């Protein structure tokens, strides 16, 4: 862990995910590496709901439940009542809301790893935080405009 650059929310990702994976592969046992491969901040497989990955799965479940509640509230035209996410999230525009949710996930990950220095948990959290940073890094206005244009005007995209 000491050889890896430190991560802070909002910074440019200091290391590629592939680099991290290759370092982890060389340093971890086959069993631990397999477990690390299963972990993703985007989704978790059902068999990851126990052991060391339990807290991460719980974090993702909480987020998913809140997203479901927000979507239900929108469909029913009522005020959403998320259980975990801060209420301020609902007032932001989609970009800021996503960033706030990611910050919330980051803080939860901080809580998961606190007091667990030099443990496998710390490696897992490092991977998830790195994924968050790469996702945050992909939020790009120019790219976003291209994506929108490609959907709204596919003919122009083909001409380009």
């Amino acid at each position, binding site marked *: 862990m000491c050889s890896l650059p430190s991560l802070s929310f909002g910074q440019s990702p200091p290391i590629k995910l592939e680099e991290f994976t290759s370092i982890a592969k060389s340093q971890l046992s086959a069993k631990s590496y397999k477990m690390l491969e299963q972990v993703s901040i*985007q*989704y978790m497989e059902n068999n990851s709901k126990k052991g060391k990955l339990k807290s991460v799965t719980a974090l993702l479940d909480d987020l*998913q439940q809140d*997203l*479901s509640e*927000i*979507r239900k509230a*929108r469909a029913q035209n009522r005020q959403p009542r998320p259980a975990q996410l801060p209420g301020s999230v609902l007032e932001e*525009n*989609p*970009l*800021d*809301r*996503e960033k706030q*949710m990611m910050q919330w996930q980051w803080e939860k990950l901080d809580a998961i790893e606190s007091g667990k220095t030099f443990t496998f948990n710390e490696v897992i959290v490092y991977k998830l935080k790195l994924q968050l940073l*790469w*996702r945050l890094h*992909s*939020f*790009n*206005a*120019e*790219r*976003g*405009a*291209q*994506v*929108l244009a*490609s*959907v*709204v*005007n596919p003919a122009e995209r083909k001409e380009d």
Partner: protein
Amino acid sequence: MASMKIKYTKTERARQKKILKVSERMLPLFEAMEKSLMSTILTISERIDQIRAAIEKNQKAAEPWIAVMGDAWVDVAQFISVNDTITRPVVVAGIRVQQFERVDFMEMPVGEDTPLWVDDAILLMREQLQLMSEIRCLEEQIILLEEELLEVRARVKLFENRRIPNAKTAIRKIGQKLQDDERLTIATAKVVKTGAKRR
């Protein structure tokens, strides 16, 4: 005019008078049709401008959060696309055109693990796709109306520059020729009469 062959007969004069009468009656109709087509095209162009402004407004409103659409986790294009544009035939300025009704979308349901911004993006894309489809329909209407306008203008020119002047000239020339012939006949008859008296 130079190449125009005229039959100097009373029947031909009657025919040319009929052509002139019909042409003078048709010309105002074609002129009115030209005006109507031009005004309709202008109205449709204004509507296109309004829709473009609405698209621009939506785009501006989305600018503060458009960056999130670059999200490496999501390919938002898979969630929505246009299946078909529903139109209905209507008659505009005497021309049958297709009027925009609505867009039939192909939408993939949003999963529970899909980021929340995708919902907003789908709403925005829905609106923009609908407006773009309406523009396409209106542009097709303009193409049809402009084709008709060209034909009507050609007819107006034909009546103004060819048919009416040609008929008028023909009527005048036939009239002169018939008068000349009449005079010649009378003169000949008098000469014949005088000759007969002398004999």
